[in-house]
């Protein structure tokens, strides 16, 4: 029962976070989460930061650059978007670290299925991210130039998007193949 309550709190918090339109509260939320985490706070913060950096930082950066060049305000947009993803990621890591998600979801097959799918996505992404940084490290003989890093990150992000879209499609095929019928 407790886990279910946690789960609904988590979902509620995610929805609330996703609706935040300014960055100030997001900073407070981040600090609050940080305090709640206790010992593991730093490790999880680092992980959340890396994941967010990888997925949204570079994309929002280019949008912000565009806004800047059209001399429109961009700070608010940039901070809000990134802090929001950071908070959501942090919360998710907090939730999965503390709550046995599969137990929490035992009440509905369909829901548990969908959530497991997204959790496994997050886990896979963490693993893929580790693979990418290993690949980068193993390939570099000399210290890479800044251009090389940007080029690599650019293609890595594009590859990531393609990959997750393709994977979701194939996930769905695999479900259908094994009798999932809508």
């Amino acid at each position, binding site marked *: 029962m407790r886990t279910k309550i946690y789960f609904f709190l988590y979902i509620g918090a995610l929805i609330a976070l996703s609706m935040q339109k300014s960055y100030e509260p997001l900073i407070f939320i981040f600090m609050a989460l940080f305090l709640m985490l206790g010992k593991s706070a730093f490790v999880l913060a680092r992980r959340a930061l890396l994941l967010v950096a990888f997925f949204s930082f570079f994309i929002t950066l280019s949008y912000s650059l565009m806004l800047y060049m059209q001399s429109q305000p961009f700070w608010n947009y940039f901070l809000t978007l990134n802090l929001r993803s950071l908070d959501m990621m942090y919360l998710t890591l907090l939730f999965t670290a503390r709550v046995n998600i599969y137990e929490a979801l035992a009440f509905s097959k369909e829901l548990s299925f969908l959530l497991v799918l997204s959790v496994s996505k997050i886990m896979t992404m963490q693993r893929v991210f580790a693979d990418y940084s290993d690949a980068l490290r193993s390939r570099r003989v000399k210290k890479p130039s800044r251009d090389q890093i940007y080029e690599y990150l650019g293609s890595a992000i594009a590859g990531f998007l393609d990959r997750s879209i393709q994977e979701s499609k194939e996930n769905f095929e695999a479900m259908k*193949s*094994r009798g999932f*019928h809508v």
Partner: protein
Amino acid sequence: MFSIKGVTLKREGSVIFENLDLTIKAGEKIVLLGVNGSGKSTLLKLLNGLVFAQSGELFFEDIALSKKTLKEKTTNEYFRKSVGLVFQNIDAMLFNPSVYDEIAYAPRQLGFDDIDARVRNYAELFGLTPYLQSVPFKLSGGQKQKIALACVMSLSPKVLLLDEPTSALDPASTAKFLEMVRALEITIITATHNLTIAPMLGERVIILDENGKIIYDGKSESAYEIDLLKRAGLII
């Protein structure tokens, strides 16, 4: 079991198969060879009712496979119980919280009543019993492949479609797998790049060239001729 007549299939604009004809009889063990991108995986997905042709006919027994016929619940259930596919991309198949649930997924979806017995039986067969409570996608590549095999076998299907099923298995596990394929008296179509094990996977060999055209369809004995394999681009 399957009959393909004049099938033309395009994916994202490019032609994968043009006017493909193929008949597969019950109980046949078929090896599917071809270079990367020749269309092996696509053919298996076609036979599994996951991708569909733009033109031509495809029958499984007397069911014309199409999006429409597979929407129909009883047809879908019958077809899914009869034909199982092990994906080349194993990760796509693993989305359940535990190995137990993973193997039980299809039997549950399709309303089997001896689910627990099936799960334990096939887990044991693939040496997965110690991992029943583990999270599937955290296991090793070979273990994942065994889970995928157990998942599909747990349906006791009439047709097994296997896409590179041994790519991650160690030699002992591969040998056991070959033994199993030989002992099963069902239709099995295996796509593989492994020319060493290919002759043990079936007596009928189908070779696709890089354009998805069948350039050989016949007995295993004459399939592994140097010239033919060269023409298929499989050796240099």
